[in-house]
Structure formats: C-alpha cells, structure tokens
C-alpha cells in the first residue's frame, strides 16, 4: 500500500526548488484563489491554507472548523483525533503536501514557521448528472451513461456488481494532469495475464497530458499503426459490467465518459449491445445484416469501378443496358466518378460532424439531395453509382462502434485504387492485404480475428450469430478466463413428442 502510494508520488512533478514548507506556501500565494488566514483563540492559534476553488467551503466551515476551535489545539496530533473525517494526515513531506493541496486538502499549521502540517480532505465534488447514452442509445435497456467523474462511473459499475471480486486497481498517469486511471476486473475470473498487461502498459505511459480515455486507448493499444481500433470504448455501464462478467478488463479514467474494454475481437465491433436485449433469432439476423452491410460498404464501389473499367463482359446483357444508358453521358472514367462521389459523401459527413446538431442535419439533407441530383443532371455521375455510393455510406453507419465505422469508410479508398489498377484482381489483392493485416493484429496480445482464426467453434456462439442465452454458459476461450464456466445449464428432460 505504502509502496503504491510512493510510486505515483515519484511520478509527480515535485517542487524541487522549494526547500521547506514556508517557501512552498509563499510560492502558492502567487495564485489569487489560494486563501490563508490565522484562526485566533484565547490561548492558541493556528493557520489555515487552501485553494478556495478546490475546497468545499461550506463543509469546511460547518464540519471541520468547529471541531478545531472547540478546545485549544496543543499539538498537530490532536487534529486527526478531533476531526471526524477519514483521511486526515500529518506530513512534512513537501511533495505530498503539494500534491494534496492541489487535490483539495486543507493545510493546517500551528505556527507560521512550522515545517509539519496537518492535511484535511475537503474536496469539492462537482460532476455532471448521469444522463442518457447518446452514442450507444438502445430502445430497451438501461438509460444510464458514464459521466466525467471517475467516482460516479465506479459507482455505476459497483452497484451492478456487488461482489468483492471486483477489483479497481488505481494508476496515476500523465506528468502534468496526474489523471487517475482505474483498471477494473473480476478477480478469479479475468485472466491474470490480461490484467497485468493492462497494468503494465498503463504504468509505462510516459506523457504529460491525458485528455481523455481515447488517448489512453491509443497509448496502450497493441498496433499503433493500424487504422483498426483494437479496444472497444463504451459509454454504457451495463455493457462494461457485462464484459467484466465475461472476464474482460475495463479501464476507466477520470474526466472521461468512456470505458475501454479489452481484449476484444473483430466480430465484437459488429455486435450492438442491444443484441442481448432481444430474442436470439432477431439478434442474429441483425448481426448478419450488419456484417453484410460492412462487406457491401467496403466492396460495392470498388466492384463497380472494376467491372465498368475492365470486365463489362461480366454483366448480363439486360443489366448492362441499364448501366450503359446511365453512363452514356458521363465524360469521366468510373474511378474519377466514384472518387468524386465518395469524397462528396465524406465532405458531407465531416461538415455534419463539425457543425452544431441542428445546422448539421440541414447540411446533410441539402448536401445529399441537392448535390446528388445536380451532379446526375449535370452528367458528372451516373445515377446508378449515386445509389451505390449512398447505400454504401448508409451501410457503413450500421457499425455499432463509432470508431469502426470511420475505419470501414477509410478502407474503401485503397480498394478503389486497386480496383482501378487491376479490376477484380486488384480488389482480391487488396482484400488479401486486409486479411493479412487483420491476422497480424492483436488485442492485449490475444488474436484479433478470433473465433474465425484461430477457429474456436465454441466461441462462435456469440460472434456472427448470437445463440440463446442457455448456450452462453461458458466464457469465451480467447479470454483464457481463470473460471471458464459462467453458469451450469440445468436441462430438463423433455419428452420428444407433440403436446397432447
């Protein structure tokens, strides 16, 4: 425990130039919100120092100061005994004092030159209220989402998992921001190796500022040069809880309304959390549609370019006449036509994402309809391609994880170039590159393409399709859980006959 405390203390910026406590206090007085005054009583007096922007002043005046003034203070040791608040410490360590006062502790000294002081915690806790999830909204199911406060987020998970096995390992990351990061896992269920990998990678982080959990994601991810996300982020506490039960590791960080989940697999990016709320047949078909949508979104424009550039013999006569008549007036080769449309869709999306919500919608409609129709009428693009590009853009938005849908849209462009180069052959070669890349990826050291490769039939129960809950009684193999059985299924013997 002590070791742990000192480890993160060492990482902090220390007031090296300052030699003693009076100097530190003089230094702190440079800030306007640093308050200091002397509390005088009949026969004794003490000094109080704190940042009024960090300290809960009502609490200080109502619940701390009365205990200090009721009897005269003789020594500093009296303070922890009198103040009925846990966490009061005595210290003469400059680093610790500095760290604590910046976290909302109140310094109390008995005289103006003392080098030892008491530190009383009285942080002001301001946090946004728990709101509805916006990115991963589901029609049924919990309507709570993570907020920026780490304590609230931990509370949201702890109240769903009231077991002592739920461990929260704390690391402080970032030389300047000193962000608290918590690794959550179920002891005895999560694989120790996975947990240690996450802990190790967090401790190896050496940056000054952690803006958000996404930064941590980029810093601890396996292959930093891959456009594919290898950790899932979620804003749903129920999703975080349910993956904890599976044996995964969750990372929360202070100031970020997102939890990171690892290790993950590619198929998990295409499963929405809502899949678990509906019947397995409905959920499975939704997943199949999503996977079809992804393939469609990546491949359809390249295939259009490939066929119309090189292999129009592929298309049967009747279909070909439709295509030819739509492309009759187009002066551009298919690749330019496709890139023009794809880029305008990307422009619309980017403009929509940067603008305020209400304006953004207008841009989408105006851009989509007006530009689309106008470019067809002007003879710049064929209407068949317009339909294809619009559909593939739509299809890319079916991906439940936002980061993945960005990747999917990006993947289309190399495919387009290869399709222009060598037609369908180019598409296959680009596809091979994609497969090789995915094969190389790992998430916290576990294969990313599992359960497809390495093929694990047991894990297919919750991959491309989702089987009924009674089949979900084992934890996924790729997590190498310490306890592989989730629950025992009691199967009642049914008579194999029609009901009478």
């Amino acid at each position: 425990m002590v070791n742990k405390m000192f480890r993160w203390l060492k990482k902090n910026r220390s007031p090296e130039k300052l030699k003693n406590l009076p100097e530190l206090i003089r230094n702190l007085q440079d800030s306007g919100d640093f308050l200091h005054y002397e509390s005088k009583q009949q026969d004794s007096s003490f000094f109080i120092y704190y940042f009024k922007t960090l300290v809960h002043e009502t609490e200080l005046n109502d619940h701390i100061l009365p205990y200090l003034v009721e009897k005269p203070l003789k020594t500093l040791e009296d303070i922890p005994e009198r103040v009925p608040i846990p966490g009061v410490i005595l210290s003469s360590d400059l680093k610790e004092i500095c760290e604590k006062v910046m976290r909302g502790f109140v310094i109390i000294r008995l005289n103006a030159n003392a080098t030892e002081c008491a530190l009383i915690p009285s942080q002001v806790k301001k946090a946004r209220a728990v709101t509805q999830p916006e990115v991963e909204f589901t029609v049924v199911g919990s309507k709570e989402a993570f907020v920026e406060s780490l304590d609230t987020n931990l509370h949201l998970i702890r109240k769903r998992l009231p077991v002592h096995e739920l461990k929260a390992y704390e690391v402080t990351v970032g030389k300047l921001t000193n962000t608290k990061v918590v690794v959550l896992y179920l002891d005895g269920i999560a694989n120790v190796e996975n947990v240690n990998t996450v802990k190790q990678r967090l401790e190896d982080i050496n940056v000054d500022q952690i803006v958000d959990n996404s930064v941590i994601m980029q810093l601890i991810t396996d292959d930093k040069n891959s456009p594919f996300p290898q950790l899932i982020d979620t804003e749903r506490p129920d999703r975080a809880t349910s993956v904890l039960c599976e044996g995964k590791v969750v990372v929360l960080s202070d100031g970020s309304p997102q939890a990171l989940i690892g290790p993950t697999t590619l198929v998990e990016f295409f499963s929405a959390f809502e899949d678990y709320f509906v019947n397995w047949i409905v959920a499975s078909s939704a997943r199949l549609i999503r996977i079809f949508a992804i393939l469609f979104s990546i491949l359809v424009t390249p295939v259009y370019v490939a066929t119309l550039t090189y292999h129009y013999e592929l298309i049967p006569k009747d279909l070909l006449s439709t295509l030819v008549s739509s492309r009759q007036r187009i002066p551009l080769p298919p690749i330019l036509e496709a890139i023009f449309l794809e880029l305008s869709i990307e422009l619309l999306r980017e403009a929509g994402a940067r603008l305020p919500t209400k304006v953004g919608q207008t841009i989408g409609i105006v851009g989509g309809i007006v530009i689309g129709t106008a470019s067809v009428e002007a003879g710049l693009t064929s209407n068949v391609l317009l339909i294809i590009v619009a559909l593939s853009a739509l299809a890319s938005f079916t991906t439940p994880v936002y980061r993945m849908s960005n990747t999917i849209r990006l993947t289309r462009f190399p495919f387009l170039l290869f399709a222009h180069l060598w037609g369908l052959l180019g598409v296959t070669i680009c596809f091979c590159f994609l497969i090789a890349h995915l094969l190389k990826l790992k998430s916290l050291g576990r294969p990313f393409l599992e359960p497809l490769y390495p093929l694990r039939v047991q894990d297919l129960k919750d991959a491309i399709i989702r089987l009924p809950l009674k089949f979900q009684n084992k934890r996924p193999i790729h997590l190498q859980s310490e306890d592989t059985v989730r629950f025992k299924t009691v199967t009642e013997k049914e008579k194999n006959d029609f009901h009478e």
Partner: protein
Amino acid sequence: MAGPEVKDQYKVSPFLVFYLVHSVQVGVGVMGFQRISTKYAGNDAWISVLAAGLSLNLIIFLIYKIMMKEKGDLISLHHNLFGKWIGGLLSLIAIVYFIAMGITVLRTYIEVVQVWMFPDLNKWIFGTVFLLLVYYCLSGGFRVVAGISFFGVVIPFYLVLTMIFPLFYGHFRDLLPIFNHSLMELYEGVKGASLSYLGFTTLFMYLPFIKEPEKSHRWAQGGHLLTVFIYTTVMITTIAFFSPEQLQKTIWATLTTWKIAEMPFVQRFEYIGIASWALVILPNLCITIWAAGRGIRRLSRVSQQNATIPILVLILISSSLFARRESIDLLNQYTSKVGFYFVYIYVPFVFVFQYIKSKVGRSG
C-alpha cells in the same frame, strides 16, 4: 544437430495442418492438370488422379513416421542422417526446390491472368505487388502464414460449387469403358497429375511449429483427402464435359468450364474465378517461400527476414524471365518431375535409411 526450438506462443493448433496441406496443394495445378493426365490415361485419367492421391496418403504417413522419430525439421534430419556437408547440400537442394515451386506458381498465375484477363498486364509491377503482399504476410510469422492458408481455403471454397454448371452439359458415358488403358498409361497419368498434388513436403519444415505434432497427422491426411476428392471430381466433370481431342487443346480446362457458368447477375464467371484465385495462390507462395527462408535461416546464421528478401527478389526476376508459353510449360514439367521423385523416391529412401541407421546405431 538438434531440432529447432519454437516458443509455444508461435505454435499453431494441429488442425491447421489440414489447411496448410490442402492450400499448398491446390494452386495453379488444378487450373489445367487435366490435359497432362488425359494425354496418356484418356478417359481413365480420373483413376490416375485418384490413385496418385491415395498413394500420397502413404507418403504423408511416411513423412510423419520420419519426423516423429527425428523431432526436428528437414534441416536437422539431413544433418543427422548424412552429416554436415552432404546433409547441408541436400537441404540446399530442398530449398532450391521450394523456391522453384514459388517461381512456378507465381509465373503460371501471372500467365493465366495475362491470357484470361489482362493481356498487357505488367508482370514486373504485378509480381512486385504480389510479392510485397507475400512479404507482408511472412513478416507476421508462421501464425499469419497459417491464417492465410486457412482463409485461402475457406473463402474461395465457394468455387467448388461452380463445378455444378458443367454437370448439366456433361456426357457421363464418356467415362466408359473403365480400365481401357494399360497400367503403364495410368502410371504416366499419375506422373502428370502429381504436380497438382505437390507442395505438402513443406510439412518437413513447419512441423516444429505445430502444437502436439503427432496429433496433426490425421489432419494432414484429411487435408490431402480433400484435395484428392476435389481433383477427382474436377477430373470426372472435365472428362464428361470435353471431348478428348478438345481437351488436348485446352490448356486450362477448369477455367474453360467456368465460362459456361451463368447467373442472373453474372456471366463470364472466369473473371471472378481468376480474381478469387489470388487468394488461393497467396498461401501457396507464402508457405513455399516461408519454407525456403526458414531453411536458409536454419542452415546459416542469416535471419529469416534477411533470407526472405533475396528469395523474393529472385522469384520476381526469374519468374519474369520466363516469357514464352513453352518455357512456362517446361518450368512446370521440371518442377513436377523433381517433385515426383522427391515424393516417391526420396521420402521412402530417407525412411529406410533412417530405419537402418537407427538399427545400426543401436547395435553398434
């Protein structure tokens, strides 16, 4: 010389041997093996194909017997059986053979693409991109190679379904009368069919990378049986579909049968087929080049990366030098001849030699 020590994290499960064996066999051979086999065995060529296949089951059995005794790879086997110099020379020949297989596969595929899809395909650029792809796969280690061979079997497997189309037009009476060819003619047919079966000798190199290699035996046999099944089916369909004279003039019979496949939204299916075939060729190249690079790494102190890059350049240059149809055919013939002797003569010889040596060593 002891066998290589491979860390557990780089090993793959035994059942992947099924895909490794199958994917290295099915390559360019299946596109046009019919002509060479039927040249001698005529309408009985399917018996040759079946017989060649089943006899190779025995050879795989021998390979496993040898390797289970050796507990290493081809390099350490040669070293232990024949000593440092002769063994090293034999290993070098095996490496050259693997490289030659790579050249054959790449060059034949480029030829197919040039003839069927893009007559003016720049073979240098295409070869470079394809070999870059191979390098990208190889840089992920054997795990990725095995993965590529897995997907190289699973994803293009739908192509088997296209063999249904020629069935509608085939005359299965062409198969009759059965056994109207002499054993000698059938044997020549076996020889002709063997190129399409070759490549599984790479087993010698990657067995140390398999977890519990003894368990992978049945998977290797299974992968090979799948190849036998596919080839025999393709052969029967081809004999039924083509007339003997036509077949002798058809270099790529399988591709020609694709031409008649027709669906509501697709005709001229061979474009899709040949494009998908890149996914079948890739594991083929990956495994052979991996085996060659691995061999050099084991023979010398060169790292596998430094060994692979010159091999890739060599394959690119030499495959581009074969420009004429006749020379490509010759390349195919020679590779298949060497492979034929490697499999049918060298492997049994090594088996017997190892057996005798172990007996002599024990008594002496």
